[in-house]
């Protein structure tokens, strides 16, 4: 459970960086260093999300299991203490 929480927290940190860079790039679309950082965190996030989905389940409906059992609606949901 704690390992799941740690991995989720890592994804949340990457998302935080990506979102801040996104807003910055909206108004500075040719900033090479911001784009370089964006690419870096995007790759890190993709790898972390892949691992999370494989181990703990989907973060988006499209990542749900369509081989054995649809697991998108599985508890806990994000607002519940157990999910955090």
């Amino acid at each position, binding site marked *: 459970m704690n390992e799941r*929480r740690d991995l*989720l*927290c890592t*994804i*949340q940190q990457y*998302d*935080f960086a990506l*979102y801040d860079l*996104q*807003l910055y790039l*909206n*108004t500075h*679309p040719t900033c090479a260093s911001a784009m370089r950082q964006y690419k870096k965190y995007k790759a890190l996030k993709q790898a972390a999300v892949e691992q999370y989905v494989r181990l703990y389940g*989907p*973060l*988006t*409906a499209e990542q749900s299991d369509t081989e054995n059992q649809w697991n*998108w609606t599985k508890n806990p*949901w*994000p*607002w*519940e*203490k157990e*999910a*955090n």
Partner: protein
Amino acid sequence: MWIYEKKLQYPVRIQNPNPKLAKVIISQLGGPDGELAASMRYMHQRYAMKQGKLKGTLTDIATEELAHLEVIAAILHQLTRNLTPEEITASGFDTYFVDHTAGIYPQAASGTPFTAAYFQSKGDPITDLTEDLAADGAIM
């Protein structure tokens, strides 16, 4: 359109329920300077923007405010878990509980339900962005 991600923007893990605190924090959900007002103001003002970077940025901010709305709702949900009748009465949460039990309802701490009257949308970029400065400044 929007796609939901099954995670909070920032984790919420509350050990001790506290309905008295929830009564105050609820203003950040549905009060005049709450997250719902913030999201709805950017969401509807974006159509007046002329430049792509403003259309995009207002869309991005409106979306992020929805993520904040969910974080506040998670705080309220966890602060009001497993309350006893005695806790509900002693904390003063009874005035909310009588209408909503522990359901999440967008209202100000005063009890006023959320209303679109909290924000403006005038169809002019400078006017709307100035309104945003006032709204976001009010909670800083």
